[in-house]
C-alpha cells in the first residue's frame, strides 16, 4: 500500500486527461439526448434513457421520473387528463413505482394507528417486481414487521419472519421459480389490480367529482374525490391529485369505514409517490439473498410456481380438482380454467373429444358445473358451458364459460364466486377441491382478453398457443 495522502490521490485524479473514448461517449450521449428532444410528446426522456447502450446492458440505468415538468415544457399537443384516464394509463404502464404509508390499527386501547412505509416497483412487461411492505406490528417486540419480496421475472425471493431468539426476531429467505406468464401475471396483479381495488371499478371512478385544485412544487393538480359502498355496507373514500396536463398522479389518499352510517372514516393508505414508465434503479430486481440470512431453499431447489400442475407432482389420492385461473368479463360472465387429474388414467384425451364451445363440459370425475355470486343475497347464479380445452405435460385443462342468470353488479361489488361442484365419484377419493374463487382478473377489453385469457391458455398448452377459435368477440357473443 502506498503512503499517498488523500490530497495526493485527489490531485492525481485532477491531473488525469479525459480519454478520447470517454469524449466520444459524451458526444454520443449528448447527440442521443438532442435527438430525443425532437421526438413528439409522451415520455421522451424515458425513451432517451432506454436507448442508452449502457442502460441496455442494465449496468447503469438511472432513476428518472419521466418528468411531467419536462413534457409540459415541450408545449406540444395538450390533452387534458382526468380521473377516468387513470385505469388506462396505469394498465398500459410498462413500469410503475409507488411509495407511501399504510396505517395499521395499533391495538385495542385507542392508540394512534401505526404509520408504516411501503414501496413497490414493477416492471410489468418483464414480470419483475420488488415489494417492500409492512406486515403489521410484531407482538413480541412491538416493532413493525417489514417484508421484501423480489421477482426477477424468473425467481421470487421472499422473506419469512421467525419467532425471536434472544429477544430478536429473525428472517429467512425462500425462493420460488415462476413461469414467464405467471411472473407477468403477479406483477400485474400486484400493481394494476392493487390500484384498481383502491380506485374502484370504471363505473365508480366515473362517479368521481373534481373538488378542488392544489399546487405542489409549481404544478397545479386537480383533486378528485370519490365515495362508494359495497353491498355489505363497507365504505371507501378516495382522493386523488391528478395533473390535467400530463396525467401524472401526485397523491392518493384512501379511507375506509365499516358501515355507511358510521361517521368516522379511517385513513388506510397514503400513496405519496406514483410514477409510471420510469426507468427502474439498476439491480433493484436482483434476487441475491442478503448476507447473514438463513436460506430455506435455493434457486436450484426452488419449486416451480406456474399456472398449471407441476409434472413432478405426486397425487396421493385418486383425483384432484384444481382451479388455475378465473376471469370476469365486462358483461359479467366468467371464464375459469380448471382441471381434474385422475391418478389411475394414463390419458383423459377421450373425455375431451367432440366437445363444442357452448356445449357440455367433459365428463370428468368432478365438474365445476356452476357458480354462485357471493354475497349470496344477490341471488345470482352462473351456468357453466364448455369453451375450450388445452393440455400440457399430460394434464388436460378445461376452460369453461359461466353465464349469469341475472345481470350481475360490477365485479368489485362481489366478494367471490362459490363453485358448485358435481361429483361423479365418491368425494372421499378426492384429495383436494376448491370452494371459492376470489382472485379472478377483470377483463374490460380485447387487449385484456388477448393478454391474460389467451395468455393463460397458451401457458397451459404444450405448443404455447391458445386455441384458435377463442376470440374476445366470439366469447362475448357466446355468453349472450
Amino acid at each position: 500500500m502506498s503512503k499517498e495522502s488523500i490530497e495526493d490521490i485527489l490531485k492525481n485524479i485532477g491531473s488525469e486527461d479525459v480519454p478520447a473514448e470517454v469524449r466520444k461517449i459524451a458526444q454520443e450521449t449528448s447527440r442521443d439526448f438532442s435527438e430525443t428532444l425532437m421526438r413528439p410528446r409522451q415520455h421522451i426522456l424515458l425513451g432517451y434513457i432506454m436507448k442508452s447502450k449502457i442502460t441496455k446492458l442494465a449496468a447503469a440505468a438511472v432513476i428518472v421520473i419521466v418528468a411531467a415538468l419536462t413534457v409540459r415544457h415541450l408545449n406540444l399537443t395538450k390533452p387534458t387528463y382526468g380521473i377516468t384516464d387513470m385505469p388506462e394509463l396505469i394498465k398500459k404502464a410498462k413500469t410503475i413505482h409507488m411509495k407511501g404509508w399504510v396505517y395499521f390499527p395499533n391495538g385495542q386501547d385507542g392508540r394512534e394507528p401505526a404509520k408504516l412505509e411501503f414501496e413497490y416497483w414493477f416492471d410489468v412487461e418483464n414480470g419483475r417486481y420488488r415489494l417492500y411492505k409492512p406486515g403489521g406490528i410484531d407482538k413480541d417486540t412491538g416493532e413493525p414487521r417489514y417484508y421484501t419480496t423480489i421477482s426477477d421475472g424468473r425467481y421470487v425471493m421472499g422473506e419469512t419472519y421467525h419467532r425471536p431468539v434472544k429477544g430478536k426476531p429473525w428472517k429467512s429467505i425462500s425462493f420460488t421459480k415462476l413461469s414467464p406468464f405467471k411472473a407477468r401475471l403477479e406483477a400485474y396483479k400486484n400493481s394494476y389490480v392493487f390500484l384498481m381495488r383502491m380506485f374502484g371499478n370504471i363505473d365508480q371512478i366515473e362517479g368521481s367529482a373534481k373538488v378542488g385544485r392544489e399546487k405542489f412544487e409549481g404544478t397545479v393538480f386537480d383533486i378528485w374525490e370519490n365515495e362508494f359502498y359495497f353491498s355489505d355496507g363497507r365504505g371507501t373514500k378516495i382522493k386523488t391529485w391528478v395533473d390535467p396536463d400530463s396525467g401524472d398522479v401526485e397523491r392518493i389518499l384512501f379511507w375506509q369505514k365499516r358501515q355507511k352510517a358510521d361517521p368516522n372514516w379511517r385513513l388506510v393508505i397514503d400513496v405519496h409517490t406514483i410514477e409510471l414508465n420510469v426507468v427502474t434503479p439498476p439491480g433493484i430486481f436482483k434476487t441475491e439473498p442478503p448476507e447473514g440470512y438463513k436460506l430455506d431453499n435455493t434457486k436450484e431447489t426452488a419449486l416451480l410456481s406456474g399456472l398449471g400442475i407441476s409434472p413432478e407432482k405426486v397425487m396421493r389420492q385418486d383425483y384432484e380438482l384444481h382451479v388455475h385461473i378465473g376471469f370476469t368479463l365486462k358483461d359479467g360472465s366468467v371464464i375459469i380454467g380448471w382441471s381434474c387429474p385422475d391418478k389411475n388414467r394414463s390419458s383423459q384425451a377421450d373425455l375431451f373429444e367432440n366437445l363444442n364451445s357452448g356445449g357440455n363440459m367433459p365428463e370428468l370425475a368432478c365438474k365445476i358445473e356452476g357458480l354462485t355470486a357471493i354475497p349470496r343475497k344477490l341471488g345470482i347464479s352462473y351456468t357453466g358451458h364448455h369453451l375450450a380445452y388445452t393440455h400440457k405435460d399430460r394434464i388436460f385443462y378445461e376452460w369453461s364459460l359461466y353465464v349469469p342468470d341475472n345481470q350481475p353488479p360490477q365485479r368489485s361489488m362481489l366478494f367471490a364466486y362459490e363453485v358448485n361442484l358435481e361429483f361423479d365419484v365418491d368425494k372421499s377419493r378426492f384429495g383436494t377441491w376448491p370452494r371459492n374463487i376470489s382472485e379472478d382478473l377483470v377483463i374490460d377489453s380485447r387487449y385484456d382478453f388477448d393478454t391474460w385469457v389467451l395468455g393463460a391458455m397458451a401457458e397451459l398448452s404444450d405448443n404455447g398457443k391458445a386455441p384458435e377459435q377463442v376470440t374476445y368477440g366470439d366469447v362475448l357473443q357466446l355468453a349472450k
Partner: protein
Amino acid sequence: MKYSKRAELFRQVKADYIDFLASVLWKLTGDRELFTEAMQYSLLGMWQNVEKLNGPKAGAYIYRIALTANSAAWRNRIGRDGQIARSQIGIANGPDEKVSRSELVAKVRQAVAQLPARQSKAIVMRYFEQQSYEAVAEKLNCSEAGARSHVSKAVATLKSKLAILTEWEE
C-alpha cells in the same frame, strides 16, 4: 420560454460546455458506466434548467448539475439506502486486508460523491479542476477563507470515511 427557444438555448449551452462537463464528470466518476449515467443526468438537468444557463453564472450552474448528477449516479450504484455511506466505507473487512490503488481511488471518488454539496464542490474545484482558492471562493460565493475551510472540512470528512485504511492514513 417557447420550446424552440429552449431547444436552441440548450443546443448552444451544450456546445459551449460539453467538454467541461465531460472533464468534470470523468474525474468524478472514473468509470465509463458511471460516467454515461452521470452524463445522462446532467443533460436532463441542463434541459430542465436551461433558462438558468442563459447568463454569466451558467458555468457555476453546470457545476452544480454535474455534481448532483454524479451523486445520483453513485447513489444508484451503491443503492438508494446508502448502505455504504452509513458508516466506514467497507473497502476492507479489517486493517490487515490490502486494497489495490484503483479500488482505493474508486472509493475516494465514491466518498466525494457522498460529501455535503458545498464540500463536494470545493473539492472538485480545488483538486479535480486545480483551481485557486480565489476562484473556488468566487464560484461558491464565499470568502477565500471560507473556501479553504470547505476544502479542509471535505478532506477531513474523506479521511474519516476512509479511516479504516489505517496504513494508508499514516
